[in-house]
């Protein structure tokens, strides 16, 4: 997870967002191998908020 937005082009930003959302979802649902502690859940939420902000900025740029 933790995509570095600065390194992304518009072509792959959607893939990156989808990847981050899927990874966060797996971790929170505990369907993945990894174990998530409460402190990590906070971190995941922060990353998701960052992702949401990125989506919002993309939407604003739409004609």
């Amino acid at each position: 997870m933790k995509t570095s937005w600065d390194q992304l082009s518009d072509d792959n930003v959607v893939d990156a967002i989808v990847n981050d959302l899927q990874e966060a979802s797996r971790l929170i649902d505990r369907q993945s191998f990894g174990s998530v502690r409460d402190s990590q859940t906070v971190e995941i939420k922060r990353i998701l908020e960052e992702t949401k902000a990125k989506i919002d900025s993309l939407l604003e740029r739409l004609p």
Partner: protein
Amino acid sequence: MEKTAEFTAGGAAEYHIWFDSLEEMHAELPAMIRRHNLEASHQLTTWGMSNDAWFGFGINSYTEMTTKIRDGWPEYAELLGKRAAELDAALDLETVRAMTIDVRKRKRHRMDQGDTLDLPRVWNGDLDHAWERPVRVPRRSASQRYVTIYLDVSAAAMRNARDAVWRAIAAKKITDLFTSAGFSTEIWVGDSTSGAYVWNQNAPAKTWTGVRVKEFSQPINEDRLAAMSSVGMLRTHGFEMICGSPWKVQSSLGMPLNRGLVLPLRERQEAGERVIRIGECWTREEAIREVTAVAQSLLPQKLEEAS
């Protein structure tokens, strides 16, 4: 020498990593992890530590778990043995007995009537044993009977170590059945994973790992096998093997795939060798089903065909 393979099968890229022994894994894996995933591997020692369902059975630290795997876990082996014996009452006994029945082979019998006459015996006056006839008789296993067992210890984080014990019990029971049926067994433990790697690296979607617990010629170390069949094996060395891949791993390490075989065993199966895969088993009923399915695949007539 590290043993890895990356290739495409059925349209999907795969990565396989395996070691011929736990000792080989200990010698070679750390350098592989350092290349790409040292940071990710550090998180492994903290995962699940506040959760007594992670390793379970009184194991509360990563080091304690890896020590049990290295030196053996007699208490867990005793538990598996006891629970495996308890399964007998619930198993289809006819099937289980069938598996332990010896293979029948034609053997030449001498008696007072038969298909061919042995003239030297007639001349010697041994008329009770002068006639010969082939008779199908049970016999203890032949040395050419081999089976490779792959125990896939994959389990999502939500899986409780107490539930995962049923898979270890099934593995113990199946191994015992093969041994009592006279098979030489080779045992491997590993995991199967999907989505292990960070996106955009052109990395494979699926990963298989494996460590050989014992070769055909080696005796079973019950205490080590018990530790390596526990979910603790996945949550320590299984995860480390994923971190040994040449791509950056996801923070979750992906999710259980729960199917297939690590490459050397897949090749054996494709070559016609007998390979048994033991996978998901989270309840007593599922363990019974797993053991019964293996026993049924080894009914005497099938053994006879194979020998």
